[in-house]
């Protein structure tokens, strides 16, 4: 399963309804994850039983931005924005890194040896629940989309 990584900036989808920037501090990541999760929950854009998926996707994307994108440098910020696109909600997660290549994220379907790697499962997990996840700025912006529950 291929991973799409664009070189350019992410297109802005709909109206920006949430915008937070914070330092790359893993010990404080929950502040950002909880605030973003609470926003989506309060708007009833997901089912109650999917809350753990929402938390997990935010955790994976925030950790990737802080730890891999910004290499854990606490002086570098990450920015999380949520857009209301009408039928869907869209998250843009920016870091200050140089991005990554699709080959850095091996898929167990393409490479059976990848099953035993000790990293690289976050995107796979996010894709399971999200309707779409693509990357911009060579991988330094994650764009997650999921249709709202009606």
């Amino acid at each position, binding site marked *: 399963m291929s991973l799409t990584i664009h070189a350019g900036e992410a297109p802005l989808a709909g109206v920006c309804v949430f915008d937070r920037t914070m330092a790359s501090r*893993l*010990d404080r990541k*929950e502040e950002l994850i909880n605030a973003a999760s609470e926003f989506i929950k309060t708007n009833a854009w997901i089912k109650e039983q999917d809350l*753990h*998926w929402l*938390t*997990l996707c935010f*955790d*994976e994307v925030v*950790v990737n931005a802080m730890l891999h994108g910004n290499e854990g440098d606490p002086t570098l910020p990450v920015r999380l924005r949520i857009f209301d696109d009408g039928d869907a909600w869209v998250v843009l997660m920016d870091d200050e890194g140089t991005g990554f290549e699709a080959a850095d994220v091996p898929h*167990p*379907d393409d490479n059976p040896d990848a*099953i*035993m*790697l*000790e*990293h*690289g*499962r*976050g995107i*796979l*997990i996010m894709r*399971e629940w999200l309707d779409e996840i693509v990357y911009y700025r060579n991988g330094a912006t994650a764009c997650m989309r999921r249709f709202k529950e009606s």
Partner: protein
Amino acid sequence: MPSANYMVEEYQGVVIFRILKDRLLEVAAINDVAAGLTGQVNRHERISLVIDAQAVTHMSSAMLGKFVAVQKMVKKSKGRLALSGLSKSIMPLFEVTKLTKVFTIAATPDQIIKEYTRRPLK
């Protein structure tokens, strides 16, 4: 040193590692659980290890990676490891990452404990 994130019991040569933390998302908790597991594997020549994850409601990919690392250690020492009590919210993570092919997974710890005590490692 006792941990708030897990407790360890031993029954007829089987090490039962019960995870007490519900959200395995924080780096500190993940590292603590991983260090606890590694310590148990290092303490036994050939371990029969049952991880009881009934209390876990959230688990990040970082924790999955730690389980894989422990599984490698156990295999290297010709021991055995099983996971049990994976909830409806956790099991899909093992399925989508194909880790169901790597781990023995049981509904309850008792099933594996019974199996391991019936066939002790020599």
